[in-house]
């Protein structure tokens, strides 16, 4: 049973750290967005408004928990926890440092792609279970988007796999530590693959400019229309979790993970992850939302062909140069 105890303790620790980070990220995002719009953001609760997330959670806890009469009760209640679990499950294979890694699976990249592919199910269950036309429209958009962007995501993730010759996430980071970060060399493969991965990841986690399933100005609030209180909060949190963990994955696959001079590996990994995370929010507060058809055109006309070309290029590179 020691394995089990170890796993439970490790998982509990990682989840606690990530959840705390998400609460801080909420505050950070609001501050950053406020600065970008010449506002101050939260200032009243605690020093620099740092306790604002706590106040938010307390407020959400007190809200009435409403389930619509005509909703599919089981599915409606199942969706929010499933969303958060799906986002957290990916963290199992992320190497936070050379020694802090939950399960160093031989097919780690495959695992995280597979769990990521499950992410659309809670969204769909929520949309269908709500029995609300806006929620259903949101769910349909989410599925179309997820099915499409799954392709460039997988293609982009294949590039580091081909270049390093392994699907083990820790081995990919190890390779980069010994040779060079994949984004640095071969940069003509690494940089486009990284950009492709980030774009597809943004689309998968439904962030602006790809937040069409929610699209509050068109669909009320999309799939979250009928949700109140903590259930809504779970969706909201799952989105942040997804972005945070996907940033960690991108940092591990392309930016050398824990590798870096002068500081312990964990610090480097945290810096890279949070840097990417902040970048995602910078994009979110800068760009507008795509239209549904533009989103599909971008994926199938540009991202997928680019992805195929990158995979081919990586294979040729390995055969003839590397």
């Amino acid at each position: 049973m020691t394995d089990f105890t170890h796993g439970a303790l490790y998982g509990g620790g990682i989840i606690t750290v990530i959840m705390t980070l998400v609460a801080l990220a909420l505050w950070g995002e609001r501050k950053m967005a406020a600065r970008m719009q010449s506002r101050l953001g939260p200032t009243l609760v605690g020093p620099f408004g740092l306790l604002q997330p706590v106040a938010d959670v307390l407020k959400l806890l007190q809200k009435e928990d409403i389930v619509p009469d005509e909703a599919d009760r089981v599915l409606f209640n199942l969706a929010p926890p499933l969303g958060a679990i799906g986002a957290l499950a990916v963290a199992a294979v992320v190497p936070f440092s050379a020694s802090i890694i939950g399960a160093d699976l031989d097919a780690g990249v495959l695992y995280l792609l597979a769990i990521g592919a499950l992410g659309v199910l809670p969204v769909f269950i929520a949309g269908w279970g709500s029995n609300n036309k806006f929620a259903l429209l949101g769910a349909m958009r989410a599925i179309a988007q997820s099915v499409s962007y799954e392709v460039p995501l997988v293609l982009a993730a294949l590039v580091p796999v081909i270049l390093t010759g392994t699907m083990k996430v820790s081995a990919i980071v190890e390779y980069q530590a010994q040779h060079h970060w994949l984004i640095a060399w071969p940069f003509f493969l690494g940089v486009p693959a990284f950009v492709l991965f980030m774009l597809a990841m943004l689309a998968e986690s439904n962030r602006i400019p790809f937040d069409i399933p929610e699209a509050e100005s068109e669909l009320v609030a999309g799939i979250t229309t009928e949700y109140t209180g903590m259930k809504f909060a779970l969706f909201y949190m799952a989105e942040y979790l997804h972005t945070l963990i996907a940033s960690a994955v991108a940092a591990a696959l392309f930016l050398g993970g824990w590798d870096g001079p002068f500081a312990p590996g964990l610090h480097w990994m945290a810096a890279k992850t949070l840097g990417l995370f902040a970048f995602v929010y910078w994009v979110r507060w800068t760009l507008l939302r795509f239209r549904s058809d533009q989103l599909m055109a971008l994926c199938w006309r540009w991202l997928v062909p680019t992805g195929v070309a990158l995979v081919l290029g990586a294979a040729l590179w390995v055969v003839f140069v590397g």
Partner: protein
Amino acid sequence: MTFDPGFTAVALVMIVSALFVVRARHLIHAALWLGVTLLATAVLYAQLNAPFLAGVQVLTYVGGLLTLMIFGVMVTRRHEGLDAAAESDGKDRGFIFATALFVILAVVTWTSAPVIASPAKVATTAELARALLDEYLIAFEALSLLLLAAIVGAVVLVRRRDAVPGAAADTPALPATPEVNP
């Protein structure tokens, strides 16, 4: 044969969820139960020391196929509220065929090679890749060709629907959509 609680639990989940798939009254419920069955299959693969197969199972079947099925239900059914009833005719025939298949598979499994005693050797992804793209390359490529043929066939069937007289009578009456591009 020893009792394995982990395997028993997964097998029970698979059987019960598979029953729910065929007995569910809503198509969407049936599809979601199918997701449970497929995930349990992936867990079974993982228990059998085949993590790669488990990952591929989740990625293609749950992530791809199931999502496409749900998408198909949503775009082809007129959804008024939660109503997407799962209609099926020929339940008796289905029952007979399923039972026959089960008996055949059970007999074959029972009479074929004995169970491997120790846990099977864990094949790494690299070994699997070598086997697929080196030793069994011809079979692997032939399979992909077969899939391509199936895709082309599906496209042909869909495009030819109007040309077959009488075929339209069998399909449920869809609201007449004006031809955008005749």
